């Protein structure tokens, strides 16, 4: 009996030793979470924006704005101080400024006087000073008729480029047609003054503009609140200039990897928290890797319409150096990207990345591949309303002057659009891939 108990004990001991040794032999942890940041050039707007943001309103107080305050019918403009105050307060904390040649902060509820014609006393309009003063960490709103002294809008767009577009921030223009009765100054090449009366005819209403500058999400939030609280049905148009062209950002937060993937497997061993980046592993270094993804083109509200026949693609590869910097890799033009319309749905598109790992990927290193699909200058077009609201500068003769249009609007918007295209690189798709070959 005692012998059997001993044997039984030995057996159990051996069994548990077996489990213990087997357990020890296998690695305990699979994931090694580490912070991954995109290469600086590839980084897009931050995924997270603060819940509340200070809102600064810069109001053009030049005399040419007086005419918006005078008629009672169809007058959004007179409700604007309270409307902007309410929206600003609901988004964070609102601060009003007036500007002509200089920018001056307004205290208390002084901003409500913008409903009164007597407030508009400035003679020079310097929108560029308002842009200079604006804090890029705030949402800034410029109320203006888009007149700039000396017609120096290229100076304004340069400042917008340096301060906003180059830092993944956005600019939007809301155009609102409003009743108008008053003088319009410095029109055309001879800087003439015209009297204009729209009466209460909406077709003759004269546009004024809100230029919004700040994080894309906050601009869209502002536009939503604006649309929600805008009770007077005046014609209103929108233009959003931002690095993202689609409703849901077409990075790996939205992209769907479709059938036909070859030699690449999904991996999350790095525990990358940035959902715009996806980690993959390569199964066979000598075989081609193919990554097909599908995306739905749903234009973001207010963005420039795209000509989908004028899309371009770009691929860049980087490897992580020992000092933690992403260094560009010479891929010998290996990675190829193809864009094609999907047969699944009318607005569905396929993007397929193909590369030879041996040519594109650096062995024993962390690799980053960035693929973008973007419109070229011809494919990134201004919305039709801009042309409809535009009056070319050279055509302004007394008998041709039309106060329901904005002199040089097309030129100003083209300038803004070109600046956004050059600095923000608006893209339809941004695929950010990490391949850890260490």
């Amino acid at each position, binding site marked *: 009996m005692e012998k059997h108990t001993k044997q039984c004990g030995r057996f159990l001991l051996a069994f548990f030793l*077996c489990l213990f040794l087997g357990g020890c032999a296998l690695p305990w942890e699979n*994931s090694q979470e580490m912070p991954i940041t995109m290469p600086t050039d590839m980084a897009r707007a931050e995924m997270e924006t603060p819940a509340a943001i200070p809102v600064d309103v810069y109001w053009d107080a030049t005399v040419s704005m007086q005419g918006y305050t005078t008629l009672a019918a169809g007058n959004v403009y007179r409700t604007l101080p309270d409307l902007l105050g309410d929206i600003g307060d609901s988004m964070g904390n609102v601060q009003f400024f007036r500007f002509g040649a200089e920018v001056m902060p307004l205290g208390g509820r002084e901003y409500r006087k913008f409903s009164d014609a007597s407030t508009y006393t400035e003679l020079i309009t310097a929108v560029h000073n308002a842009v200079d003063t604006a804090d890029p960490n705030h949402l800034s709103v410029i109320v203006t008729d888009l007149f700039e002294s000396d017609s120096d809008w290229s100076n304004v767009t340069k400042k917008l480029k340096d301060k906003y577009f180059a830092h993944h921030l956005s600019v939007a223009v809301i155009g609102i047609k409003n009743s108008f009765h008053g003088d319009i100054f410095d029109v055309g090449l001879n800087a003439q003054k015209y009297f204009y009366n729209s009466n209460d005819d909406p077709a003759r209403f004269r546009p004024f503009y809100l230029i919004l500058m700040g994080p894309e999400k906050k601009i869209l939030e502002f536009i939503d609140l604006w649309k929600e609280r805008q009770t007077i049905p005046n014609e209103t148009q929108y233009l959003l200039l931002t690095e993202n062209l689609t409703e849901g950002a077409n990075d790996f937060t939205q992209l769907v990897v479709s059938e036909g993937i070859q030699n690449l497997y999904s991996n999350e061993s790095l525990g990358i928290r940035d959902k715009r980046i996806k980690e993959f592993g390569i199964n066979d270094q000598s075989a081609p890797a193919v990554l097909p993804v599908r995306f739905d083109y749903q234009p973001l509200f207010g963005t420039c319409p795209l000509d989908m026949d004028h899309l371009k693609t770009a691929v860049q590869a980087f490897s992580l150096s020992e000092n933690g910097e992403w260094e560009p890799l010479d891929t010998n033009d290996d990675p190829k990207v193809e864009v094609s319309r999907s047969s699944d749905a009318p607005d569905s598109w396929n993007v397929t990345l193909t590369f030879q790992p041996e040519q594109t990927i650096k062995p024993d290193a962390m690799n980053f591949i960035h693929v973008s699909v973007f419109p070229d200058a011809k494919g990134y077009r201004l919305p039709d309303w801009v042309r409809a609201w535009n009056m070319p500068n050279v055509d302004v003769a007394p008998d041709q002057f039309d106060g329901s249009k904005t002199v040089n609007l097309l030129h100003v918007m083209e300038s803004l659009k070109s600046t956004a295209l050059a600095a923000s690189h608006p893209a339809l798709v941004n695929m950010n891939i990490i391949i850890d070959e260490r």
Partner: protein
Amino acid sequence: MNRSTRTIAQILGILLLTAVLSLFAYYIGSSFGKSIIIGTPIAFNDWQAHYKKLVYATGATGGTISLLWYLLARFGMKVHTSYDVGKRTLWGSLGGLMLIACVALPYAFANADATLKMGASIPLLFVALYAVIGYWIGSLFMTPAAYKYTPLGAEKIRASWGRK
């Protein structure tokens, strides 16, 4: 080396062999897993974490069966007459059990766990490692002297290695 020391050494040998085979099963199986999950939304590290549990289970089963054969041969079976020598049916049954475990466990785990997508390469790997190397080849060299010719082919292999 006296009998007790040899017994302990052989038990430890079986355990060590099982542990080493489990390591091979984990790493080789992981490399198979990379191709198994291509085209699925399953992340490799997730698959690998679930696969590790399968390796634990199969390793424990394989180790237990190998050890069971050794312990039965060493302590459970007695040779009283010359007819008592040779328990190939028992050895073969345990080997068959091992084969079934190597094939059934992967599919049973995969059936219960959607993340553990299975391919035929994994059961084949387990058969090669646990059944062929762990049980069969292991038993050729780590079977107590009384039954050393019981495992299939033991006589020929021991002879070719110059052992009796």
